[in-house]
């Protein structure tokens, strides 16, 4: 058992320590036990951390959603069970389903754009010379790293009706209809601008991840495909895509979860306005729950959001559970 731990330790510390693995082969007879235990030992730190630091608070959130927990109850540590009252409050809002649908559509648009953008950029990076590629990479890291506070502010400035550089530029190139154009006049237009911001900051990560997958593909495979006379599309289908597919799937899934939960950006622009037309579920959670210190209601929205996400991803999760070779 000690030996398995030894094997595991250097792995987490790249670049790894000098090889000590050579002596390990003597343990051949004890392998079955070692092999049974290895995965669990390797998983142990992650499992413990996730259960204790995410799982337990999450259970508390579910419990909170069944309680009346306003400021007073929280401060005094009172426990007042109210069954499904909080859920009734949230679901009783005539806007709830409309907002849910809007959130789903917004998420879908962001995820699709991000993934497509990221894929194209990663393929492009593969083709670029070193200098341009590095320039592109640094620009992307800058975008990715820009604090959300400044990013949302800069986007508001750029899209500003009168002072914004975008309208001024559009007018300058002859599109005079953009003189004084208000990008935030409707919910759809507001969400469009927010979507641009979200994708702009999300694409770098997806592009880097896909690029990481791309350069892992041995060059020989491309050469072989080239010799077989495959055109670029066929090469992409037969060589590139099989490697990228798991990463694309994974990224789609992650982006879906993240974009669904975006709050700061949506809030910063118009607090879900005008007239509530850009309100998404996290904004609803803030308005109904946090803003009035109704933490039970906020927790209920959290739970409902997870339920919606589970419904959206059930197909994916089912595949995950059923498939023998979990490669999605």
């Amino acid at each position, binding site marked *: 058992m000690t030996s398995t731990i030894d094997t595991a330790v250097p*792995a*987490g*510390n*790249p670049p*790894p320590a000098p090889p000590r*693995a*050579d002596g390990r*082969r003597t343990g051949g007879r004890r392998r079955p036990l070692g092999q*049974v235990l290895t995965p669990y030992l*390797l*998983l142990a*730190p*992650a499992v413990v*951390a*996730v259960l204790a*630091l995410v*799982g337990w608070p999450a259970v*508390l*959130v579910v419990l*909170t959603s069944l309680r009346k927990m306003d400021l007073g109850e929280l401060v005094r540590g009172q426990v007042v069970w109210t069954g499904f009252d909080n859920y009734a409050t949230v679901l009783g809002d005539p806007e709830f389903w409309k907002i849910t649908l809007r959130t789903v559509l917004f998420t879908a648009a962001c995820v699709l754009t991000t993934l497509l953008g990221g894929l194209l950029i990663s393929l*492009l*990076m593969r083709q670029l*010379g070193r200098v341009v590629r590095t*320039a*592109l990479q*640094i*620009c992307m*890291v800058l*975008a990715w*790293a*820009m*604090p959300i*506070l400044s990013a949302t502010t800069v*986007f508001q*400035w750029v899209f*500003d009706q*009168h*002072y914004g*550089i975008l309208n001024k530029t559009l007018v300058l190139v002859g599109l005079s209809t953009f003189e004084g154009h208000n990008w935030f006049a409707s919910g759809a237009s507001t969400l469009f601008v927010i979507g641009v911001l979200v994708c*702009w900051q999300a694409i770098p990560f997806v592009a880097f*991840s896909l690029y*990481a*997958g791309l*350069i*892992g593909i*041995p*060059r020989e495979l*491309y050469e072989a495909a080239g010799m077989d006379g495959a055109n670029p599309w066929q*090469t992409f289908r037969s060589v590139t895509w099989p*490697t*990228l597919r798991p*990463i694309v799937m994974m990224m789609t899934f*992650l982006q879906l979860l993240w974009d669904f939960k975006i709050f700061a950006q949506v809030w910063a622009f118009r607090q879900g306005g005008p007239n509530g037309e850009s309100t998404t579920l996290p904004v609803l959670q803030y308005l109904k729950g946090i803003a009035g210190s109704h933490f039970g209601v906020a*927790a209920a929205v959290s739970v409902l*959001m*997870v339920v919606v*996400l*589970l419904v959206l991803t059930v197909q994916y*999760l089912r595949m*995950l559970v059923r498939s023998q070779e979990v490669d999605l």
Partner: protein
Amino acid sequence: MRADRAMTPRRVVLSAVGLVAAAFFAFPVYWMVSSALKPTNQMQSTGFDLVPTSLTGQHFLSAVDKPGFGDALVNSLVVTLVAVLFSLVAGLLAAIPLARLRFRGRKGFLLLVLVAQMAPFEALLIPMYLMMRDADLLDKMPALVLVYFAATLPFTAWTLRGFVQGIPAELEEAAMVDGCNRWGAFRRVTLPLLGPGLVATSVFGFITAWNEFLFALVLFQDQSKRTLPVWLSTFQTAFGTDWGGTMAASTLFTLPVVVFFLIVQRNMVAGVTAGAVKG
């Protein structure tokens, strides 16, 4: 198949596209920096101000002078780096068996990780706060390290698993035929190829922790323990927001991420080419 080094038209077009894309990503950053350099009364201008007409270094000076910058920088670096290191270690340890081995409970764990990502993290604020309070960790750095570790771990484990899977197991098997044992094969073949994946993942973790505001604000009361995002928000006062200062501070705030990226990029991507040759 690969274009050669000559400037073929194809290369020129692709390079142009690459530069346009770079400009798209850089523009808001440029706007942040140029706003930081504009005098306050030119921040909102009706003229065409793509290039600022007059520059001032005053916002940068006031940002660096603002009390707490040094403390906050150190605090942020420590908390972020420790949390990222923890989650890379634990994440990679988990990713290997998840991608390569078959064992009972594997799918259960995968589902756990997935669902862990679904909960809105801010919703955990109050339970987390109460937990930290009961563990007597308020106002202590480990509390924040734990929070960021928890925030980035599920994601790290999940993506690293994907990257490990993306590397054909056959490469490892070939190495094992060449006389490596399982671990040796992993270390010599897979790990180097994982480099770029580790870059993407660790930069992600770094940025997530680096930017986090709410937990950093709530878990610490002691002002000397502010992190950079909290410090950044001191530009928003009851007397309006000092946008020039905010933009200058944000610029300073962004730089360490780029440095971090360049460092990990160099160290990890270098491994790829080496690994690819062997593979």
